[in-house]
């Protein structure tokens, strides 16, 4: 009993060190999404081509899709772009929202890097991004068949994240009723 009392501070220290050490592995910049398992907030955005098709939340039904929030000014977006092209080539639909980006800049970006998107909306005022709880670009939402958000990727999708997390989830969501 007495011996136990002596090692108590050591145990307390080890516990605190483990707790704080775990904290170091967490990225405080990544806020948990409020939207997980909730329907995509409603939006109806114009396109990036004048008179062209826009993007509305109502179309996120029937099959699981990715919704990628990006911008031509975003530094990590060119890095993520090849992964998005690969995702589209593998047959998974990727939709985009150009966030706080002038439509001509968005068009120039896609002309330069290629266009893997099945649909694109322009959110120049940034209001839809706030409804989505976006804190930066790029961010990507996985939306299921019923239009509910099931996963949010903060920062670029790396090939590892796609293969290890998002693709298995998309396959699972496709199999869902």
């Amino acid at each position, binding site marked *: 009993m007495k011996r136990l009392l002596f090692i108590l501070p050591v145990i307390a220290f080890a516990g605190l060190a483990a707790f704080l050490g775990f904290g170091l592995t967490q990225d*405080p910049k990544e*806020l948990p999404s*409020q939207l997980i398992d909730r329907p995509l907030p409603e939006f109806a955005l114009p396109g990036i081509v004048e008179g062209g098709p826009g993007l509305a939340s109502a179309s996120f039904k029937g099959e699981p899709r990715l919704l990628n929030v990006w911008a031509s000014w975003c530094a990590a977006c060119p890095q993520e772009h090849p992964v998005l092209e690969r995702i589209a080539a593998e047959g998974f639909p990727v939709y985009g929202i150009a966030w*706080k980006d002038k439509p001509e800049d968005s068009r120039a970006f896609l002309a330069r890097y290629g266009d893997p998107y099945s649909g694109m909306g322009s959110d120049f*005022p940034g209001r839809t991004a706030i409804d*989505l*709880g976006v804190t*930066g670009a790029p961010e990507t939402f996985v939306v299921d068949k019923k239009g509910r958000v099931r996963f949010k990727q903060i920062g670029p999708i790396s090939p590892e994240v796609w293969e290890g997390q998002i693709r298995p989830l998309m396959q699972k969501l496709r199999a869902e009723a």
Partner: protein
Amino acid sequence: MILPNSSPRRTPGPIAQTLCRALVAGLLLASPAAAVLPDEMLPDARQEARARAISKDLRCVVCQNQSIDDSDAPLARDLRLLVREQIAKGSSDAEVRDYVVARYGNFVLLKPPMEGDTLLLWMGPFAILLLGGAGLIFWQRRKPQPGSAATSDAAPLTEAERAELDRLAGPQD
């Protein structure tokens, strides 16, 4: 203290005095700059004051350790405009806060509410104080008081123990 060769104290001239006063006045007037731009402000001064108060409690999610009232980040500006838009629409302060929390979670509140997952945050310091206090009292109690009975509460040595002790100590020369 007067150093050798130091010149005698001189009264500054009128221009220097004025400059000094202006500098002091300027420093006194300086306060932490808010990021709110004139074009964002509401025409109604009372509504604007409410917007400022709410903005000071909302965290800028890009910079994280600034309020949206302090931050120059474009997203902070969007949120300031949103707060003002909601106020102009007639929402109460609590409704405006809830609107933002619904999108970004409790994390945007610089003063998080007391809830299940923030209990540790709120109670942690008190728990540690309590534990530390209890430990201190326990330790104080255990420490034998000099001169008190606690120093001699061990059972006295038996005759056999005393003999053994003498044997171990060896012959005293």
